[in-house]
């Protein structure tokens, strides 16, 4: 997607060693992140990981306990929210209920002392950009959730902010509207070329929309990289398990490889110490072949369930002491009804290992 990007109009945004504590609890612990001009970075993570705190510190809605926020070389850490020149779309519907869509969009322009003609023109342009020109004179109560969030996006863009901040703007919407609006946000962001920080707990959303995804955990950035890298080459077991589905299979590390039920798989980190470990295996690297031999084997099991996902299906196989998920085309999965004896074939992709259930220390 980034290849189609027009000339970037945004500025670089730098978060330097940003930290925030609430009543002794560390919400953000030394976050360092540089967003290139015009780039869209998604911060992804579970509830309480610090992603929204990071966004609110960038917006100036909260004060940092330490660190700096820099927009295009200017330190804005000490500036209040109304002086930071950011556009923000919130998780909750945030249109001013007593104003029409047009008045909402004009609000920020009015505060910047633009003339009525200029305001009307700019508001018309951004409403057109989000495809809501026909709804200019509607109040929030007369619009759907998706429309409200699009107006909120138009309102944020109307003031031509330095940075666009999106705080889970899609989470209150139903799945279909969500996916459509997600694409629309990306289209608009590319068209405007604004530097954007997008916060979400939805991995699909983050992977689909962002130039780079930052996975956060316990107030720290675990990994930052393009979506494909985050998915295919996670650097920590937390990232591997949080992004996409992962099988946790018992194994034994020896000589830079892990033995999983007789299959030897290379490790992402070859210098891992020998010993028992949990191998994190993606379902799409597991394939199934019908097993005619009744002799039990470590990689032989029975299909117990199939989840239809559209073009692909997810098959659950019982190996006796553990269950494993395999993802394949629906056509292949249909040949393996529940009860079918199957043999697992593990693709020899490099895998991560976890040493312990509670700490999930990586190899």
């Amino acid at each position: 997607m980034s290849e189609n990007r027009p000339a970037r109009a945004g500025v670089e945004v730098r978060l330097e060693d940003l930290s925030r504590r609430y009543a002794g609890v560390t919400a953000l612990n030394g976050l360092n992140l540089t967003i290139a001009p015009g780039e869209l970075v998604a911060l992804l993570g579970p509830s309480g990981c610090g992603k929204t705190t990071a966004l609110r510190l960038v917006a100036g809605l909260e004060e940092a306990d330490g660190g700096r926020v820099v927009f295009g070389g200017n330190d804005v850490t000490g500036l209040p929210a109304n002086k930071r020149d950011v556009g923000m779309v919130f998780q909750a519907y945030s249109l001013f209920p007593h104003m029409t869509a047009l008045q909402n969009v004009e609000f920020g322009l009015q505060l910047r002392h633009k003339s009525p003609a200029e305001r009307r023109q700019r508001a018309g342009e951004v409403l057109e950009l989000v495809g809501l020109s026909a709804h200019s004179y509607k109040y929030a109560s007369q619009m759907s959730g998706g429309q409200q969030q699009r107006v909120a996006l138009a309102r944020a863009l109307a003031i031509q902010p330095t940075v666009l901040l999106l705080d889970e703007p899609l989470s209150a919407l139903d799945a279909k509207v969500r996916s459509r609006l997600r694409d629309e946000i990306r289209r608009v962001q590319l068209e405007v070329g604004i530097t954007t920080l997008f916060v979400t707990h939805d991995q699909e959303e983050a992977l689909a929309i962002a130039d780079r995804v930052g996975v956060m955990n316990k107030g720290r950035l675990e990994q930052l990289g393009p979506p494909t890298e985050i998915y295919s080459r996670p650097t920590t077991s937390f990232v591997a398990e949080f992004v996409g589905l992962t099988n946790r299979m018992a194994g034994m590390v020896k000589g830079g490889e892990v033995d999983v039920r007789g299959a030897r798989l290379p490790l992402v980190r070859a210098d891992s110490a020998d010993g028992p470990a949990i191998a994190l295996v993606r379902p799409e690297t597991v394939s199934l072949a019908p097993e005619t031999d009744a002799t039990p084997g470590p990689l032989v099991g029975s299909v117990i369930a199939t989840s239809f996902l559209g073009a692909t299906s997810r098959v659950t196989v019982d190996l006796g002491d553990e269950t494993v998920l395999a993802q394949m085309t629906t056509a292949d999965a249909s040949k393996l009804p529940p009860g079918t004896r199957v043999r697992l074939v593990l693709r020899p992709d490099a895998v991560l290992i976890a040493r312990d259930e509670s700490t999930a220390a990586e190899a």
Partner: protein
Amino acid sequence: MQRSRRRNLLIFRWVVLVVVGLFFIAPLVAMFEFSTRGNAINAPRTLDGWTQVAQTPGLIKGIIVSLELAVITPLAMLVLLLPTMVWVRLRLPRLKRIVEFICLLPLTVPAIALVVGLKPIYVWIEINISPETQVLAFAYLILVLPYSYRTLDAGLGAIDLQTLSEAARSLGAGWATVMLRVVVPNMRSAILNASLLTVALVLGEYTIANLLNFQNLQVEVEYVSLTNSNTSTAVALGSLVFAFALLLLLSFVGRARGHPTRAEEILPSSASSAGIWGQRV
């Protein structure tokens, strides 16, 4: 079956309306009847009680002072209470219970006890600030806190204050703009209700004014009633009708806009439920 049930329901509604209407109107009619009685048995009806209002200087002064207080007190209440409540909700939510307790406290303190506490303060106020009756606004501000707090609190609870204020701030609004252009318009009905309750209380207040030796409307009505009960009843009726007219005006203002906020939808016209119309408190 359905039709007869609907008809019965309609009859029931009309019966309730008529009974409640009579309950409210009967005392007003009785007051009017009394205010137009002649001075002797079998004397013809007269409007002297009403016309003498204009010829009673103390009464006119009392009306003007009370009307001034009815403007000053709601304004002072809004300037003091609304920003405080917004700030507490946004920045100091842990203090909400304490602020609520303080605001509701005047409900539990009898007016006479309040006067005992206020008297030395008013001695100081009369010497150092002003001896005019308008300074009663300080005391009235305390009296109206419980009613105003509850009404404004319901209004604030009906809007997503944090998101709206943060949205406005991110668009470049300072706190004053947030208050005037985002918060106030979205709780217009709650603000009007709180103001109306304040006006009603101020117009009907007697005890504190009398005990602190100030001459407001109700104190003057009391004085006049000693010599001319027709006129005092006429003025009392006039102040009641004025308060009802304000309530009616409010309900029309509340409906005037096509798109009510949630605050307006959930807030009843709470004035009548407060039970302080035209009563001396």
